[in-house]
């Protein structure tokens, strides 16, 4: 199982490094969306819950781009058939793809979050880096798990680019609620609000429930 997962991750990362299909697109999309928000809201600097909302909506929409492309190579170039012929546990594909999507998201955020701080965040806001990191990791895990499942579901349909966002966005509303509520006090200028730890609990619960659920049903998306 572990060697299979490692091999699949290696394959996906090599593909990404050679073609640069997902991460740069997600990144460009995030930065463009920040610029759009700047003009749409007509504000030079954001703080508090507005900043948290802009950041999380942008990251979520960028993640949808990654989900859409996650299984395209498998579908178009026979990767599914090759994988199904190999004598390995099918769940390995789910684990590998979720980890790859998580990695993509982390790579995007490594640039997009500093860009957000530079472009939109009010000066003096957002000093609590460890807390923000915890929120990012937990939210990314949830997005990766749900995104992998929905990406695999959507890639076999005829209207792939429509089905994936239509299903994924409502499913990820709890992640946005929890992540935005948790990071709003971190972006407050005054910094007086205590960090609401219960939202991390909600994110962790979401990750656990959907992780187990996706683990249980993913096999049925691969059967031929």
């Amino acid at each position, binding site marked *: 199982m572990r060697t299979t997962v490692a091999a699949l991750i290696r394959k996906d990362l090599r593909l990404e490094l050679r073609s640069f299909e997902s991460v740069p697109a997600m990144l460009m999309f995030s930065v463009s969306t920040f610029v759009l928000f700047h003009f749409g809201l007509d504000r030079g600097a954001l703080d508090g819950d507005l900043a948290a909302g802009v950041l999380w909506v942008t990251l979520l929409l960028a993640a949808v781009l990654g989900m859409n492309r996650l299984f395209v190579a498998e579908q178009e170039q026979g990767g599914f058939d090759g994988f199904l012929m190999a004598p390995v546990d099918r769940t390995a594909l789910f684990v590998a793809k979720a980890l790859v999507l998580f990695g993509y998201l982390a790579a995007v955020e490594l640039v997009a979050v500093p860009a957000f701080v530079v472009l939109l965040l009010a000066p003096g806001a957002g000093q609590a880096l460890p807390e923000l990191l915890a929120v990012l990791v937990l939210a990314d895990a949830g997005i990766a798990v749900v995104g992998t499942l929905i990406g695999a579901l959507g890639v076999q349909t005829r209207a792939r680019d429509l089905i994936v966002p239509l299903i994924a966005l409502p*499913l990820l509303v709890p992640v946005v609620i929890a992540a935005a509520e948790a990071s709003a006090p971190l972006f407050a200028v005054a910094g007086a609000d205590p960090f609401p730890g219960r939202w991390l609990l909600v994110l962790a619960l979401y990750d656990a429930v959907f992780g187990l659920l996706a683990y249980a*049903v993913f096999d049925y*998306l691969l059967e031929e």
Partner: protein
Amino acid sequence: MTFGRGLRALSIASAMLIIGAFALVFFYAPNDADQGFIQKIFYVHVPMAIVALCGFVAGGIYAIRHLRSGDRADDLRSYVAIHISLVLAVGVLITGSIWARAAWGHWWVWDEPTLVSFLIVFLLYACYQPLRFSIEDPERQARYASVFAIVAGAFVPLNFMAVRMAESLAHPRVLSTTGGAMPGDMRLTFFVALVGMACLFVTLWKYELASKSASIQLRSLKRRLAGDHALAPLSRSAAPQEL
């Protein structure tokens, strides 16, 4: 497959329960002290919402059975349950909007967790039929729809919890642990309306199942009598077309 068994008794029971519930609503339950007559929409709105959510979860449970057994009849059951729940959900959103307008003065209120979470659940399930429609292979359509129904069924309670934590608590908690603080005659009316709505749901569900399976069986009989060439090819459909 005999989906039609007991349909007549069920139809009579649900008609009587619905008529009885409406009689209780208009002639027995008192007018609400704050909201007056408009509060009576509660006896339609809340049972409909509860039945719709239970129908979504039931769709998920039949989907689990479908994936475990591979029985296409379970996929049909899951599909019909979600289909009827979707119709009810439209009714819930409309009646809820009317009630919100009368009671709070706005057609839509964002800081009501129950409204918002219901809308999110509705938006999610609104993708169920497009998902089915965009998969052509019937066997794969059934399998993928079941995966969706399971994930969405588990999403319903989790979503309600997350949204409720985020928002204020002004929407009445109908079935809270304190019993919703309803006076006895209101509670009786409410429970009759709830049972009536549940009965109506089951009746409609069985009618739809009977109709769908009858047309599927009719098609296979025709094929056996006249051969494949005598049948018009199946058009693409979101509904299961084979058993």
